[in-house]
């Protein structure tokens, strides 16, 4: 008995050595899969990943390894970190406003997929085609019609004290959706955007680190208002036959966002990566739109009827990519100062 215990303990202690030698071997070996970095919610249980990836593998016979790489903003910084030993072949989830930074980084390979012919020109946000759009959405506040009788009509309206501790927001330092609202306030108020943030504080229940947790808290009933997309109610109509959760559009306009994908310049699997982009812009469009509850870019996509029941934004706002590139960090820093007081 004692001897066995000793042997076991010894074996356990020696395992790290085995791992170490394994590590050295692995560093030499070359993986056989197409490595795709995507933001967390793409990979998650309810995201498009579990639908799109098996379909692509079946159609092309190419194995894909989908790597969940954190929230939106993390993707580009992760790629920049790995600049010297890049691992990804394809990246999914770079938003249009990062276009300038992404192009400047020279990390990506230009590729004008033939499928871009079916994408309306207003979505061609990168003239160099390093980044190609794969879906787009419009940010909007969503509300729970069971608990909220009174509906806000503008950003200013949200400051009303009657919505005390009723709004769930998302951290712009971490999440694209959160950043969407920050830039939305910049688009509406210009340099005065911080006073909106100063005044919204009493009405905020919490600021979460990502869209998923914010929306989850909202459907769990923790608060009646949440920052999301105009398209979000589709999910509840489709799967729950419920129109309890609704989006509201503001006359002053709603911020919009285009999400893009790109091929990493260092890829050894260029042909496979291009096939993947083609697939993303064609056969995967419906699954992505439904699972992400955003709009597809390919105008031939046949969508479920539920999409027809959505409110249409009266005005779609965007910010100039160069302005965003130059100012974004300042906006975020000032936001932190205001919100941490």
């Amino acid at each position, binding site marked *: 008995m004692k001897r066995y215990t000793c042997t076991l303990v010894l074996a356990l202690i020696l*395992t790290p050595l085995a791992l170490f030698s394994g590590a050295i071997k692995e560093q030499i070996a070359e993986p056989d899969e197409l490595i795709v970095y995507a933001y967390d919610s793409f990979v998650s249980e*309810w995201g498009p990943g*579990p639908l799109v990836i098996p379909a692509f593998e079946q159609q092309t016979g190419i194995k894909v390894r989908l*790597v969940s790489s954190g929230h939106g903003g993390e993707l580009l910084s992760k790629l920049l970190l790995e600049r010297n030993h890049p691992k990804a072949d394809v990246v999914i989830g770079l938003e249009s406003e990062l276009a300038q930074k992404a192009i400047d980084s020279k990390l990506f390979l230009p590729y004008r997929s033939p499928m871009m012919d079916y994408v309306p020109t207003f979505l061609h946000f990168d003239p160099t085609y390093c980044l190609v759009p794969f879906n787009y959405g419009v940010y909007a506040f969503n509300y729970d019609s069971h608990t909220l009788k009174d509906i806000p009509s503008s950003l200013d309206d949200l400051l009303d004290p009657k919505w005390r501790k009723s709004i769930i927001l998302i951290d712009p330092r971490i999440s694209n959706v959160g950043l969407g609202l920050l830039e939305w306030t910049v688009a509406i108020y210009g340099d005065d955007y911080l006073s909106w943030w100063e005044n919204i504080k009493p009405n905020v229940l919490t600021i979460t680190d990502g869209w998923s947790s914010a929306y989850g808290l909202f459907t769990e009933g923790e608060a009646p208002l949440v920052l999301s997309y105009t398209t979000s109610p589709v999910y509840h109509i489709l799967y729950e036959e419920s129109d309890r959760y609704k989006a509201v559009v503001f006359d002053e306009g709603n911020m919009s966002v285009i999400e893009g994908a790109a091929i990493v310049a260092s890829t050894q699997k260029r042909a496979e990566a291009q096939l993947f982009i083609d697939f993303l812009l064609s056969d995967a469009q419906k699954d992505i739109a439904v699972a992400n509850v955003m709009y597809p870019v390919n105008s031939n996509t046949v969508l479920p009827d539920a999409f027809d029941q959505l409110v249409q934004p009266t005005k779609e706002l965007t910010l100039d990519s160069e302005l965003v590139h130059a100012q974004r960090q300042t906006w975020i820093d000032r936001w932190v100062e205001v919100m941490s007081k």
Partner: protein
Amino acid sequence: MKKLGALHSQQRFYRLLGLPALVLLTLLFVVPLTFTLSRAFSGDESLYFGEAFITLFRQPYTWTIIRFSLLQAFVSTIVSLLIAFPGAYLLANYRFRGKGFVKAICTLPFVLPSILVVLGFVIFYGNSGILNTLLMDLFTLDTPPLQILYSFKAIILAHAFYNFPIALSLISTRWENLSPSYEGAALTLGSNRWEAFRRITLPNLMSSVLSASSLIFLFCFSSFAILLVLGGGPQFSNIEVEIYRRAKLSGDMTTASALALISIVITLALVLLHLLFQRRGSYEQESQLFEQVNSSYKKHSLVSSLLIALYVIISFGFVLGPLGAIIWRSFTSSITRGGATQLSLKWYKELLGLNSSGTAFISTALSSVIYSFIIALISASIATVLGLMLSARLARKSDTDSLAVELYAMLPMAVSSVVVGLGYYLVGRVVGTTFSMRLLLVLLAHVVIASPFVIRSILPDYRSMSKTYMQAALTLGSTVRQSFLLVELPLLRSSIITGFAFAFAISMGEMNATLILSESNIVTIPVIMYRLIGSYNYSGACALGTLLIGVSVALFGLSEASKRRRYE
């Protein structure tokens, strides 16, 4: 002459025994720390020496974070003490049924992973949580009466939940060993009870109060998961959360490392303070050892019985409510996202791979369970062996009074697990990030984090062990090695097992360093739980949480059983 030779060989043996552990632990601890420090000072090529600190100190936000870290730790400590004090009084002065169970709860905070506490809190205390739903149904209210989550209050409450048992345990033990004769004398001499308490009892309890406070303050200061999930937004971020955010989310390693150094300086001071208080306490304890072994318990009155019942019920509800909520929730599943719920075994089936619904949860959850067990088994074994070797040396140190020796052993505790994680992350960027290498780094980080707890469990037992057995063995002709293996080890059996159980539990529940280190290919149970909470799959997180609770209870049972066996 012969005796002197024996003493020499004895010293040599223990020095040699401790040496490899000392060297290894130093390496494991110092190497990642060096990476962090060099990064903090020299940073990128574009920065000059120390620029990161100047940038940091110029930002008002840095000061806000430091101030908040200290403030929340201070308030948490006070609240924990306030909750613990009446309990300590009752535990020390009355004998009642369920006392053993109350004491058992005192061990909970050490073995419960903080992500579990967070999860339990959201489910139990949330606006639509069990408690609020219950109260709303009872009193037909439209709005949840207890709005405690997502604010400063939530953080304090979670920290109190986590830490009041530490205060309860330390203070009640001290109180129990206090001689009632002083208080009796004071009463006889005409002082009233309040005066007797204030002038006799309280000063005598002070060392344990200070020792508990400093420990709780340290834990709350370097708290991570609770602030990450319950805090929300820049207003409620502490240094650890900010390090994580900068390192992992913004990729800004330089300021993250600089912040890590600030954190180290503060925690080091706290550990030093704690050791000083602990020492003061142990001297006092020794001086009173012969006067009083076990205090006479007070007689029950109706009031005291009611108070005891009330305290036990409230504290049990406070501690077991959130845990029960996790277990209950794990047996329900929603039909759709945010839809109606029903009782089911769905999550357990998914966990075991029996129910393939093609979700991402199943593929990662099962492997996370396997990884967690393997990592915990290996790192706990290594930590136990290293901890034992080091304890053997420390217990025999002639200058047991030197604070430096003990501080050194506690050093990894002075560095928060987020900082350890950051250090190993930086190491990983140099040695490569292949699968095996990452697994190795996670393992080593766990060893570093767990080993101080092993030492804490073995060393006091080792020190208090009577040396006569060993001397008898030596006199009877056995070698030092034989006496160590055949006499000392069997005597230390129960504390070795307890140390292993602690290390295992800490590794199983470790999220902070692992979250920074892990890429998508190596995930442990707490990391998956964090991801599941983030994507609002609470039931799935609860199934894993229930598993963790089960493991914690089993480990706790193991360590208790080993203690009991020793006294038989």
